[in-house]
Structures are given as C-alpha cells and as structure tokens.
C-alpha cells in the first residue's frame, strides 16, 4: 500500500534563509546542457581516463599500442615472404598486412574489452546515471583513437617500401565510419549478454580468433576462391578492409563487399541497440 501524504508538509515554512557559503543552486548548478552535450562530455571524460590510465602506468605508453600490430605484422611478413612462397596479397606485403592489421586491432580490442564493459566498471555504473551506452561507446572510441594514433606507422612503412598512395585514400574516412558503426553494434550486443552468460566471454575470444583468419588480413578479398566470394562478403570486415586497402592497392576495392558491409554494419547496430535496450534493466540489477 502506498500512503502519500506530502500535502502534510505544505504548512511548514520553506527553508529560505541562505548561509553565505552555499550559493543557491539556481545560480551555480551545473549549467543546463542538452542531453547530447552531456553525453559527449561524459563519453570524452571516460575515454580520456582510459587513455590516461593506460599511458600513465606504463613506461612505453603509446608504443604498446603499435608494438602489438607491428610484432604480428613482422611475424606474418617473415612467414609469408621468407619461409613460404607467397601467392596472396600485394607488394609490398608489409604495407598490405598493416593496412588491415591496424583496423583489425581496433575491432578485436574493442570487442574483447566490451565483454568486460559492465563487469569492470560495476562500481561506477552503480553510482552515476549517465546513459549506459557510454560504457560500450567509450571503449570503441578509445581503441579507435589508438588506431588513429597508429596510422603514422602505416604511413612510415608505406614510404619506406615505396607503396603509392592512390586517390582511393579518400575512402579511408568511410571505412572508419563503417567500422565504428559495426564495432559499436557488436559491442552493444556482446556487453550486456556477457553479464548473464559468462561463458560468452571465452566464446567471443574464440570467435575473434576464427574471424582473424576468416577476414582478409593476411590475404586479400580477391584471393578467395570465386565460389566463396559472395558469402565472404557477409563478413562486414571484408568490405571494410577492402576500403582501407584501396588507399594503396586499388585492385583490392570491392564495391559489392562494401555495400554488404554497410548493410551488415547497420543491421548489427540496430540489433545491438534493441538487445541493449531490452536487457538494460536486468543488467543494472545484476552488476
């Protein structure tokens, strides 16, 4: 039963005297910003925090974020140009590798971080009421910033090995946009579900490892057997990586795959938003 008797209080005089040290809230309370501005503000604060924590606690800081793809690129370069006779990809192979490896690092880093998006920040989520999608978006954003920060490495290797930058380099921003949409979508899908099904955390790791070889990273889209071509396009990373690569290797551009990738990314985003909204209530209780 709910007994409401706030009317009871209307006789009492409002506390109106003000003590000097406390300014009345009308003057100083956080200026009324639009929800979007507040969202951006919180998102940016948390992303900054992520990056600051990562870099303030390690000596090598920034270099860690490029060391990982560099070591991997080095390994594949060695295996496929020095050990095996390579029949896939383009020359220079190291540029070919890096142009897909760097965005892959963004995708895989953000998605695997998203598996712990709620669990790691449970205390903070329980004490602030910023929109909950921020917990996913800030991970995608901070990994995205690391990706952008690693692009000079790609440029460096391209100049060292004399890869020519084509006009298709203008497609780079489109690739980033598509990948951001896709990654946010997958993140929104994964983050809440992991809270209920902890096994999913390991499953996601496994799927990501599979996806590394199922996506055109060490090979190109054109290297797939023709009968797989159509189906491979339904892996949205296929189209996205072909956009990145087109900057140096125009023949890698596959508009059919790009179209499918765009549709798939939007589908993932839509699905992610629906799942996130439906499960938000239960997630908040669980953490």
């Amino acid at each position, binding site marked *: 039963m709910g007994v*409401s008797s706030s009317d009871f*209080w209307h006789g009492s005089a409002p506390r109106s005297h003000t003590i000097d040290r406390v300014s009345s809230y009308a003057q100083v309370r956080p200026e009324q910003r639009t929800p979007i501005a507040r969202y951006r503000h919180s998102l940016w604060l948390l992303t900054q925090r992520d990056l600051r*924590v990562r870099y303030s606690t390690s000596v090598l800081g920034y270099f860690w974020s490029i060391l990982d793809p560099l070591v991997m690129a080095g390994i594949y370069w060695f295996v496929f140009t020095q050990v095996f006779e390579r029949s896939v990809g383009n020359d220079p192979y190291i540029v070919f590798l890096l142009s897909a490896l760097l965005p892959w690092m963004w995708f895989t880093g953000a998605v695997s971080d998203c598996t712990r998006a709620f669990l790691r920040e449970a205390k903070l989520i*329980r004490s602030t009421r910023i929109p909950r999608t921020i917990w996913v978006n800030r991970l995608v954003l901070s990994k995205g910033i690391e990706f952008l920060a690693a692009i000079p490495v790609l440029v460096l290797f391209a100049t060292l090995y004399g890869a020519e930058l084509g006009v298709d380099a203008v497609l780079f921003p489109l690739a980033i946009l598509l990948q951001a949409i896709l990654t946010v979508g997958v993140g929104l899908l994964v983050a809440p579900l992991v809270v*209920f099904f902890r096994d999913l955390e390991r499953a996601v790791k496994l799927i990501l490892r599979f996806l590394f070889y199922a996506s055109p990273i060490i090979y190109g889209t054109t290297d797939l057997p023709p009968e797989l071509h159509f189906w491979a396009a339904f892996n949205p990373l296929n189209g996205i990586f072909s956009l990145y690569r087109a900057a140096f290797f125009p023949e890698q551009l596959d508009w059919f795959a790009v179209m499918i990738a765009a549709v798939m990314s939007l589908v993932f985003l839509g699905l992610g938003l629906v799942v996130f909204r439906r499960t938000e209530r239960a997630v908040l209780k669980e953490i």
Partner: protein
Amino acid sequence: MTPVNQSPAVESVISLQDVGIRFRRNRRGRRNFKDLFGPRKRRSRPGEFWALQHITFTVQPGEAIGVVGRNGQGKSTLLKLVTGVVLPDEGTVHVTEGVAPLIEITGGFVDDLSVRDNVYLTAGLHGMTRKQVTARFDEIIEFAEIADFIDTPYKHLSSGMKVRIAFAVISRLEEPILLVDEVLAVGDKAFREKCYRRIEELLAGGRTLFIVSHNERDLRRFCTRGLYLDKGDLVLDGPLAEVLARYNTDYGVKPAV
C-alpha cells in the same frame, strides 16, 4: 495518487507512481533468453521476489525525507531508483531535477589516477564542466583536508581519506537533490560532524534531501518527513516523529527505563 492540498505553484521534484522492482533470490540461478527478452510480466516468477512494490509518493522541493526500515527492506533500492541507477520493473519514477547521489561515492574514483585527476573526472561525470570544477577545486580539497596528497595516486590514500575526498566532491555538486545512503558511517567523528554541517548548509540553501539511516538522532537532526519501508511496502509516509514511533513499536528496542 496525487496529494490533495498541493499548492499549484510548487511542482514535485520527485514522484514515484506505483513503482515496483524485483530481484532474483538466487544470483546463480539459470537464466534463459526467454527471460531476458520476454515481456515484463507483473507476476514474479519462482526464485524472484519484489524488493519494492506499489510505492507511490511525491516530494516537493526543499523537503528533507528520512527513510527507515530494517535491513533488506528496500531502502537502498529506493534511493537507487530515485538516482536512476536501477530501473523499475513497473510503475514510473519521475525526477525533474539533477541528483547528487552520496551512494557508493568512491565508486567513480580510479586507483591509478591522482587525486586531482579523480576530482575532475568524478565531478565531470556528474555533470560539472572543467571550469566549474576548477573554481571549486580548492574548496573541495580544503573540505577533505588532504591538501598534501593532491598528486598522490588515489590508491595510496587511506580509506578514510578516500571517503573524505569523495564526499567533498559529491557534496559540491550543487544539484538540487541530495541522496545520502549511510555513507557517513565511516570517517572519524570530527569529519562526520563536518559532513553533517555541510548537509545542513545544503538544506538551508534549498536542496531536497533524501536520507537512509539507522541512526535516529541523525534522522531527527535533518528530516521533517519520514518514509517507513517494510517487506517491500511503503507502510507509512508522514511526519518523521510519527514514522519513527511506528517503526519503534514494530521493531524497536524498548527505551531503557
């Protein structure tokens, strides 16, 4: 249900309409996809219980409300609903003004960052701009009495200091609604008194206060109105003295003769 004699000029800042929220009794219990995506049924399933149900009340600006009840009767959940960090399974929670929640206040602080960074971060997450934080920074540090530790990583502070800096930040938020959930049980006596004075100042400045406490003296000090929660129901909503009297007859220890 709306209060009858409500003066039209004053709009309520908090209003709960037939609010209910349920939890699982057994955290390890099996969940399936149907549970997650199925329609929100009003009936609770086996293994679930209603932490709160059919809660309806409104709060006018400037009121100071104490929530009483035994452990596990939904007091903290009620504060969390008002803060908006959990969502009700039924009914609506409507809060028109900003909230400064003194709930799990140290939650936003990051171990590896310095006190300074943490102050900017937490205040920012609660809606303050950089400029506003800068303007209040000295005041916050002075209140927390940790001027010597501004650049110390948060993890190296003592637990008392952690709570002090957290309280200092949240209580400077200048939001119109202040929610307090027994955080003040920690900290030494002198600091607790300081916190209480700060809360009184805020009340005098026209803030709305919502406080959960087991300490009758604290409640009497701040509050005029009380809410008594028992077994997930709002049993009584009235003047604090009445609410405390009822609570004491139900569960209280008889005053020593």
